[in-house]
């Protein structure tokens, strides 16, 4: 994690307004600014990852009205498959450039997760297409447990150190503000993926078929759209994004574990609801907003609660937001239609 600057100075000037300018206060002012920027960067990094995951939730919801609670575990599978690949490559070709190694690992993870997404839809969800809506929801939770258990059998219950193939040595673009090359890669990589996804959905024929199917399966099939294939494709794309998000998440924190998908999955779901579930732009916005709020929350929770809670309670913020959104704006920031589904 990045070092956090904590500046505490006695505000002497507040006690005596006539006193000469206190230079320590000026320094504190600068420190506040730097902390703000730092929190913003941290928030953008984690928010980008949330956004990528949230897109998978929101796409599947948009087309099926299903909350795929196993989506977070796809992220975990992606991270661990990539880890396995990197370990294998390090053994086989120790001289390989880290960037090539990471690219291969990422590619393998994406392919495996896409297959997983496809299989999940085909075996678990397709036959429940016309079932009461609680059935696929419970199935999704079951799939989540299944994936975690399988991962536990394969990779064990221990935390694995994640290889840092992109440097984690912090750069200092502004004095006192730190950002690592991994974090820069995460921000730009996810931005590129999101732009790519928007182009796919809004500018291509398959994207048009996805939107048509999301609106009306029956009429889409009357247009000659194989709606089953489009739905499978949606799962596959979402799973591919989750694979990338998983590798990003594990690289950022330097750790991977069979249960690592649960929390980011839940938070990305929150992000999707925050943005307006079913809405792609909403998932992106929701992810970023959630990441930033959480980051600021983590940075200031100690001050806000007078030291009662520390930054390890940062998860409070995501779920506080979920609660507030569900109470005051259930359609989310960008959601237009009131949905009674899920």
């Amino acid at each position, binding site marked *: 994690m990045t070092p956090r600057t904590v500046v505490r100075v006695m505000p002497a000037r507040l006690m005596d307004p006539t006193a000469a300018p206190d230079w320590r206060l000026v320094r504190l002012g600068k420190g506040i600014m730097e902390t703000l920027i730092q929190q913003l960067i941290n928030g953008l990094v984690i928010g980008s990852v949330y956004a990528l995951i949230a897109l998978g939730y929101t796409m599947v919801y948009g087309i099926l009205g299903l909350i795929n609670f196993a989506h977070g575990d796809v992220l975990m599978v992606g991270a661990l498959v990539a880890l396995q690949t990197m370990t294998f490559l390090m053994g086989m070709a120790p001289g390989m450039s880290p960037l090539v190694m990471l690219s291969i690992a990422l590619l393998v993870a994406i392919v495996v997760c896409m297959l997983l997404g496809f299989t999940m839809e085909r075996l678990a969800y397709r036959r429940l297409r016309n079932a009461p809506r609680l059935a696929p929801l419970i199935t999704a939770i079951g799939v989540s447990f299944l994936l975690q258990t399988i991962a536990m059998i394969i990779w064990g219950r221990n935390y694995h150190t994640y290889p840092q193939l992109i440097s984690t040595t912090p750069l200092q673009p502004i004095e006192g503000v730190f950002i690592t090359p991994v974090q820069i890669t995460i921000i730009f990589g996810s931005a590129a993926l999101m732009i790519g996804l928007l182009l796919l959905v809004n500018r291509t*024929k398959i994207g*048009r*078929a996805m*939107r*048509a199917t999301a*609106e*009306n399966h*029956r*009429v*889409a*099939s*009357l*247009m*000659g*759209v*194989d*709606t089953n294939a489009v739905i499978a494709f949606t799962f596959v794309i979402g799973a591919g994004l989750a694979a990338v998000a998983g590798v990003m998440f594990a690289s950022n924190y330097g750790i991977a574990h069979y249960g690592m998908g649960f929390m980011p999955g839940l938070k990305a779901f929150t992000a999707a609801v925050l943005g307006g579930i079913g809405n792609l732009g909403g998932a992106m916005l929701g992810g970023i907003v959630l990441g930033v709020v959480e980051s600021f929350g983590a940075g200031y929770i100690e001050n806000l609660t007078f030291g009662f809670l520390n930054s390890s309670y940062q998860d409070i913020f995501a779920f506080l937001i979920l609660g507030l959104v569900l109470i005051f704006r259930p359609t989310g920031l960008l959601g237009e239609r009131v949905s009674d589904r899920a």
Partner: protein
Amino acid sequence: MHTNPVSPLLQLQNLQISYGGIQAVKGINLELYSGELVCLIGANGAGKTTTLNAIGGVLPIAGGDIHYAGDRINTVPAHKRLRRGIALVPEGRGIFTRLTVEENLRMGAYTRNDKNAIESDLERVYTMLPRVKERLPQVAGTLSGGEQQMVAIGRALLSRPKLLLLDEPSMGLAPLVVEKIFEVVQTVAKEGVTILLVEQNANLALEFAQRGYVMESGKITLTGTGEALLADPKVRAAYLGEAA
């Protein structure tokens, strides 16, 4: 090609359809020859829409057979029926309200890959439906009912159908708009597209159609040329609002 002048393009044999435990269509026979405009009329709940949906492939059948162009297509899924040339304009138009008008039209050409021909077909649709052309970039949900019906028909035409199934194109529209839509239907029929038209507005439908079938509680009770049915006292009494 399996079709020849004497075998029907579409043939329903003892077709039965049930849903929710109720038999909505109780064994009907219907034939449609290439180039014909035939209407299926009857009261609300007679099973007309059900029949059309089954031909389009969006409703499974419980018994009997659907033959199209010489093949039995009972279990062929809807998206493959379109590829064979069956296009259904569903009841309530089935517009994609969140897509633009142009995107809606292009969805009609989804199965085609002949780019140039698609563009020229689009132009043809625009000349046939000038009101639609003005609205291309608009989200289709903002169109009036009549405009949506035009888009729905234009969209179906972009698949270059051999058989066009129209489900109540006049529903909920003002008389002037209905007239426009029937003009379009007639133009399409003249171009050689075979049309099966379901209508509650029996008078209008029989005027345009060469032949008609009358459906009552899931059965076909009467059939004949449009003129003959228009003159039939039973039809006049039941569907044209005249005293017997």
